[in-house]
């Protein structure tokens, strides 16, 4: 069950990518699932080609994801900023089609996995797989780095300013377009690196992205839109829920439950579950 917490942290990382783009740009990135898969295959190919350890491949995947995100911004999103949500949804959706189409054409839909052997950690009766611990630790490191970036650097402050009010940010001399491209790059980099971590945990196919994308949305609405910390907490909660549910029902049902949760939360708590707590505190 505690194992769910470790896996959930990675879900949280994936959701941070989506929530960052959503919060800053008001665009829902439907290429998210495809980018997660791109991260998975990035690790798979790097490990296969160079024989480097899987965790060493995370850095190049992160950097590649960042540039892919900037490219995505200029190709699909730039013209859609400020347009009705329908248009940006369709634009990112079409890029998703292209990526998934390329992926299935090259790799088909068979299962892949990345072999990582790490000693597990035994605590009393329980044994935690080493890969899960490593993934959770790396997630914490990346989340911490993101926090430092957003709250301690000039560029990070600019990102938050644009998220708060784009026109006001523009007025005080922040180059908003560049900041938007930057946050898109960051968001996609987070998606790729979380995909890379997931690849060390579970086997995957070209089409796995959809399920993780749905999980990311669930986590995002649980944690509140545009709230990276909330995303991490909600991700852990979701992982915990999965860990709790699996002894009682087949794994394939979890998607149904998560979706029901998604709709219920959206209707009952449109600001995310955490917002309820924050509002109480404000009172």
């Amino acid at each position, binding site marked *: 069950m505690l194992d769910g917490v470790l896996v959930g942290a990675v879900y949280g990382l994936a959701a941070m990518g989506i929530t960052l783009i959503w919060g800053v740009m008001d665009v*829902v990135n439907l290429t998210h699932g495809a980018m997660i898969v791109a991260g998975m295959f990035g690790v798979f190919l790097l490990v296969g080609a160079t024989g480097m350890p899987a965790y060493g491949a995370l850095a190049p995947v992160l950097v590649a994801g960042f540039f892919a995100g900037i490219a995505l911004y200029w190709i699909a999103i730039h013209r859609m900023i400020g347009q009705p949500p329908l248009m940006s949804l369709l*634009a990112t*959706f079409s890029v998703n089609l292209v990526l998934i*189409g390329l992926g299935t054409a090259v790799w088909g839909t068979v299962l892949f996995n990345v072999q990582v052997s790490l000693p597990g950690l035994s605590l009393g009766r329980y044994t935690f797989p080493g890969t899960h611990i490593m993934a959770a630790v790396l997630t914490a490191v990346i989340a911490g780095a993101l926090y430092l970036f957003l709250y301690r650097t000039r560029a990070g402050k600019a990102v938050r300013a644009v998220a708060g009010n784009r026109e006001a940010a523009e007025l005080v001399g922040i180059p908003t377009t560049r900041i938007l491209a930057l946050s898109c790059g960051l968001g996609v980099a987070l998606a790729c690196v979380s995909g890379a971590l997931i690849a060390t945990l579970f086997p995957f196919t070209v089409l796995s992205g959809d399920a993780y994308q749905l999980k990311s949305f669930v986590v995002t609405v649980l944690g509140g839109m545009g709230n990276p910390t909330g995303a991490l907490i909600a991700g852990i909660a979701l992982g915990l829920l999965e860990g709790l549910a699996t002894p009682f029902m087949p794994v394939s049902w979890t*998607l149904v439950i998560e979706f029901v949760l998604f*709709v219920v939360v959206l209707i009952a708590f449109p600001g995310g579950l955490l917002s309820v707590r924050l509002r109480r505190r404000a009172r």
Partner: protein
Amino acid sequence: MARLLRRPFFWIIAAAILAFALAPHGKDVELREGLLLAAVYIILASNLNIMLGYAGYVNFGSIVFFGLGGYFCIWFMGALHWGLVPAALAGGVAVSVAALFFGLGILRLRGIHFALATIGVNEAVQAFVTNFEPWGGSTGIYLSTELFQPLGGPAQALWTIYYVLVAIMGLSLYLSYFVKNSKFGMGLLAIGQNEDAAAVLGVPAPRYKALAYSASAFLPAIAGGLYFFKGAFIQPADAFDLQLSTEAIVITMLGGSGTIFGPALGAYVYEELRGWLLTSQTFANFQLVVAGVLLLLIVQFAPGGLMGLFYRRLPRLKRILE
């Protein structure tokens, strides 16, 4: 009724139905299969258009209607031994009612959230059906070919199914027209432009959206029933094939969302393009990629689609057709 007969759209749709019905001469099976697929595309796209084009809500999971309709119909026939017509109709009604209740729930969500929910609907329904034993789980349901006997044997049955599907295609186009020219349709268009303003002016937005969602479910569900009856087999991966959903979106946007003939034109152009791509060696595997690039180009540079381009050149055409 007499006024109806004077409208050009009535005759154009009637001509299209006749062309579809007569073109295969009752014997050209290959042409029939191609046209059948085109008819399914038109049915899906033009019903999707009610949500996407009129109310401005993307429904990424429109294929759920088609797949669930298929499941209901096959199950009614296989397990309860109903005839094809009551089974397909009951499937349509069942899916429509489900969509109405479901719509009242999820259509309280607006804009982006609704779109996300529709992606989830498809995933969740597929996961549900895959685990639902009465419907065969992941292996699906097979129908005995004896069920083709009441329709005069398999060969004759396929023709009957084709004609019925063409009729449903016609009904879809008429439905598009009537919705667009009714008070209900005006309300949807107003929601599409500005939901808050529409609500202030007295459009019951949540109810209208749920009704549109439900109305756009009925005909695709019946079409799904017929389509899967034709193959006498249904399984989750085919029934909820996300590719058909996405193709319906590409087709609607290509032809022109919010127009009546756009989806039909888009389906024709897309079907031609697809036929050409499938025969060319290099592109056969890249169908999704081409669809994606096409959609990206439309969204970025011609959001009105083909009909949008025509109407801008020839504003009079719009008065005649719509």
